[in-house]
């Protein structure tokens, strides 16, 4: 019999709230975390994009100065979210050999890498600090979380661009089902609001240029969408074998019923216009969780607000859910917090778990003229989800043709 896996702890630090309760309240209200960047480097490098969605709570307000010094900003966010999720789970005692970490990032320590390069050029090799390597490595966040919790059943970092956070959940589920761990700290972290990634994403025409109106720039499904808004932050979820959670009388938010990962093998960045890889991922996650289309009441969509990305996801949802897609409440929460890249799947999984647990779907903002080619039932003001047994899905897709889906079932 397959081991059942439940979610018992949640953590997040995001552009719409520095902890889960604040983020959730804002997600139901509908706020924008996007702001004009005041940094001198925006003008210095003549960046075409002048805004982004920064975390509301700077990491140094939570971590000590000495702790923070040894972590890239992405790892700082990851550790903050993981600590909140761990405290929320109420776990006080655990065999460290049965506790694993699956903590993703899309890019890793980009600030550390580029700062060290600047230091090398300006001051020479002697000034490149010895912590540079452990801070820039993409597994730095999983390693730091593992050190922090004393988790010894493995520390993993799935990297699949913007699908990374969701792929971490997929891995976490496997680790528990296969008996390699009883508890997994899953999550994703990203901190890439740096001039180089902004220039690079901009040069591929991925970012919105709505410089005069940042709060209305991220507008998934809207006819006037023109790209995503760069966000940052982290999300964390404590996955736990059901019997382990029941034995300690834990509060259970929901079941991680099924997950999946597929690859398009179509194009390095463009989504398959027919959404075939995404369709297979949706169907595989539903099969994995023994989920019928009619069980699904809510989807937290990937929906980044790019002209080419939003439509194939609709095509895939329609293919996987059939006509039932019309009855599903779809939330595009990147409209509020921007795109957290490798952290987005983890943060959106936190929102999806809360949607199932609280029976409320969060808000999609900035939808003024819905694209007629995407006739989804988009949630534009917080909406109650039905009573009874329900399932919600969260999709993530990443450059490279990565598709990942998680399915959360009510308990």
């Amino acid at each position, binding site marked *: 019999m397959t081991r059942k896996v439940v979610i018992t702890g949640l953590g997040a630090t995001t552009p719409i709230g520095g902890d889960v309760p604040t983020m959730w309240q804002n997600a139901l209200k509908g706020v924008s975390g996007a702001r004009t960047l005041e940094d001198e480097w925006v003008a210095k490098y003549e960046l075409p994009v002048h805004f982004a969605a920064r975390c509301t709570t700077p990491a140094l307000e939570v971590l000590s100065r000495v702790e923070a010094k040894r972590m890239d900003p992405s790892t700082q966010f990851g550790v903050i979210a993981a600590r909140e999720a761990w405290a929320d789970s109420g776990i006080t005692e655990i065999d460290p050999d049965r506790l694993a970490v699956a903590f993703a990032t899309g890019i890793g320590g980009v600030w550390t890498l580029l700062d060290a390069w600047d230091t090398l050029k300006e001051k020479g090799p002697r000034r490149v*600090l010895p*912590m540079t390597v452990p801070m820039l490595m993409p597994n730095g966040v999983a390693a730091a979380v593992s050190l922090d919790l004393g988790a010894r059943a493995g520390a993993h970092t799935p990297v699949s661009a913007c699908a990374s956070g969701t792929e971490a959940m997929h891995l976490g589920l496997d680790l528990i089902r296969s008996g390699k761990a009883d508890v997994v700290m899953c999550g994703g972290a990203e901190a890439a609001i740096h001039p180089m990634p902004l220039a690079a994403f901009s040069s591929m025409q991925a970012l919105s240029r709505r410089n005069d109106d940042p709060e209305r720039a991220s507008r998934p499904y809207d006819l006037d969408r023109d790209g995503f808004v760069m966000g940052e932050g982290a999300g964390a979820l404590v996955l736990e074998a059901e019997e382990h959670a029941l034995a300690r009388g834990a509060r259970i938010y929901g079941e991680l019923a099924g997950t999946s990962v597929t690859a398009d093998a179509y194009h390095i960045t463009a989504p398959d216009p027919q959404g075939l890889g995404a369709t297979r991922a949706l169907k595989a996650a539903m099969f994995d969780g023994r989920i019928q289309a009619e069980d699904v009441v809510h989807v937290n969509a990937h929906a980044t607000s790019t002209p080419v990305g939003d439509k194939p996801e609709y095509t895939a949802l329609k293919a996987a859910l059939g006509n039932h897609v019309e009855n599903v409440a779809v939330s595009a929460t990147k409209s509020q917090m921007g795109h957290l890249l490798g952290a987005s799947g983890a943060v959106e999984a936190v929102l999806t778990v809360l949607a199932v647990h609280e029976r409320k779907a969060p808000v999609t903002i900035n939808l003024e003229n819905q694209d007629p080619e995407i006739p989804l039932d988009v949630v534009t003001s917080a909406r109650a989800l039905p009573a009874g047994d329900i399932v919600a899905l969260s999709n993530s897709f990443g450059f490279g043709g990565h598709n990942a889906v998680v399915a959360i079932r009510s308990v």
Partner: protein
Amino acid sequence: MASNEEILAGLAEIVNEETGLAPEAVELDKSFTEDLDIDSISMMTIVVNAEEKFGVRIPDEEVKNLKTVGDAVDFISSAQA
């Protein structure tokens, strides 16, 4: 030229910045590893910061000889001379 007292105070500041240890805990007879619990990565960071602060060069092969805070103060003092 900094006096030994000034070098000690400067080192204490660097150690505090790197490890969070109170500057007054950084005393001449304290061992970096045994007493102050400073690992090799932090030690190298402290060395590089001390080089910049005092305008000296502390060769890598010399670092292992700097067992106590006093050793480091003496080395920096003679390197400045």
